[in-house]
């Protein structure tokens, strides 16, 4: 998985609220975990818990994908939208589960 953003505007380098996760799943059965880490990028508060983390997991034959399942740290999640992109060749059924998952398109 490669974390990117949806925004392409330099004016929002420091307050971009989107995350775009490019997922490259295994061809066969597999389990994978990815942690998306956030902090303010400027201060030293990350040493004192000023962070948050989200974990993305895929299981089995990529049938289930838990997009955002956990957080920790003292920092509020600075993201309002997380989108997921799969390779165009991926045809297996997919279910997104997680906090705030409201919509997806195949």
């Amino acid at each position, binding site marked *: 998985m*490669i974390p990117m953003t949806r925004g*392409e505007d330099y004016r929002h380098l420091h307050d971009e609220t989107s995350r775009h996760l490019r997922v490259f799943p295994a061809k066969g059965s597999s389990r994978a975990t990815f942690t998306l880490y956030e902090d303010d990028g400027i201060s030293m508060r990350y040493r004192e818990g000023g962070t948050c983390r989200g974990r993305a997991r895929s299981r089995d034959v990529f049938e289930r994908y838990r997009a955002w399942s956990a957080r920790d740290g003292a920092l509020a999640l600075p993201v309002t939208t997380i989108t997921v992109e799969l390779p165009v060749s991926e045809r297996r059924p997919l279910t997104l589960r997680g906090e705030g998952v409201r919509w997806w398109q195949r």
Partner: protein
Amino acid sequence: MTRATAEAQAAHRSGERVYTVTRAGPPGIQRYAQTWSGDNTTSWHMLRWNIAHGPDDEPVRHVQSPATTSGGFSGPVPEPELLVRWVQNGAFSPRFIMNSWKAGGEDEHAVAAPGSATGDSRGHVSIIARFRTCTRCSGAPPLRASQRCGRCSTNFERRSARVCGPPTTSCSGPYLLVAGVVEPGQRERSVYLPRGVEGWYDFHTGGYHPAGSEVVADAPLDRIPAVRCRQAR
């Protein structure tokens, strides 16, 4: 000197992170500064060797984030195609910089004006914007350095050295392999996809290729070949 700079900066702005750069340093320099190529010269030859420079230095000096000055610092003003290819490569490096000093006072940014051939590089500049936000806020940056690809680096380096001379393919972070385009007029290039992983996805098209294969990737002026490895688990 670099350590003193970092410590002085930390003392002056104690609540903020330190950021310094240096063009040289011994093992351990990564604790105090990011490195880059220094003042390079504008030429296709320099682009080729700057790509080789980063991965080759990393294991020797433990440099975590090498970078080069895209377009070259001194020398002639880059032709548009050269600037495009340099920017494309720089887009996947951990630090993208573009500054220059030309004897005639020209500005490289004039070459990159909208409507010029270098408009083809704008898509890759947007990649920088999309990567940088996440890199900035990530304790484990998605594109950490031009480090080698974990388990596959040895195969890659041997084959690359034998076939291509100086390696023009480098890793951006642990999973992304970027194949530089270092010759004028080149619109495709052969890319060896190292073994040691399950396979490789084309970063642009999503197409899948088995490890150990060699593919000919399209390299139009608006694209630099890149693949993302899928590690077996």
